[in-house]
């Protein structure tokens, strides 16, 4: 729980010079700590852990498979010209 305070503090320090990767990494660290300790996932049954992992996995599928379309749309354009 102390960690959370530190990461908030860290996010203030970073204010000057960040990029999205760093920001999301910090967010993920914070989120992981919250899930594991505030929400007691660390102490929970295997079933609960699997449930959580499944949720993240399917969210990933939604985002990743949608992006397969958007990121590759420009790949094949009018080779005839």
């Amino acid at each position: 729980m102390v960690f959370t305070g530190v990461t908030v503090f860290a996010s203030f320090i970073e204010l000057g010079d960040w990029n999205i990767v760093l920001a999301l990494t910090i967010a993920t660290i914070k989120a992981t700590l919250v899930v594991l300790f505030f929400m007691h996932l660390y102490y929970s049954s295997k079933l609960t852990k699997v449930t959580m992992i499944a949720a993240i996995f399917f969210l990933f599928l939604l985002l990743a498979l949608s992006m397969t379309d958007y990121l590759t749309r420009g790949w094949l354009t009018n080779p005839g010209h």
Partner: protein
Amino acid sequence: MDQQKDASTFGMWLFLVTEIMFFGGLFCAYLVYRSTYYQAFVEGSQTMNIWLGATNTAVLICSSLSMALGVRCAQIGKTKMMVVLLLITIVFGFAFLGIKGVEYHEHWVNHQFPGPTFQFEGAEAAGVNPQNIQIYFSLYWAMTGLHALHMVIGIGLVTWIVIAGWRGAYSPDYYSPVENVGLYWHFVDLVWIYLFPLLYLISKKHGG
């Protein structure tokens, strides 16, 4: 009893899975448009008040901390202490909504609400189509609005727990409502932890 408690907590986790996917649709839309209209998203995020956003992040994490401690108190039977901690959580919750309200007001006054009245000064100067900035704001309002709605519901639930706890409804043998509302509260906190960097911290153009 044990089976019941176990079942209700598992049910709550499943509900959170549902919530993740619910916000997931918005995150997907965000990802798609952020990659399509990156520049517009940068421009849009410039108008965000990072300090208010960061304060709100801190406020929410503190509220989660007091929530977690409150659940712990319920677990070991310190009901009075639990009520106090949850009241602190409620105060933090209102603080969050208050700050968010200030931000909303500012955007509203500046016509940064999607629709026919939408205006974005400096879009042309920055060389960005204002329509694309409108999409940023649409997602901003939808995501933070939905999150704020969850906060309101959360405050309602915590209030209910406080009242029931005051009346002595919970004991170390029976505190799963406290635990489940706690889970819900932490989840709402989690969403914000991601919304903050995604909506406020898009580019280093801020320069501190």
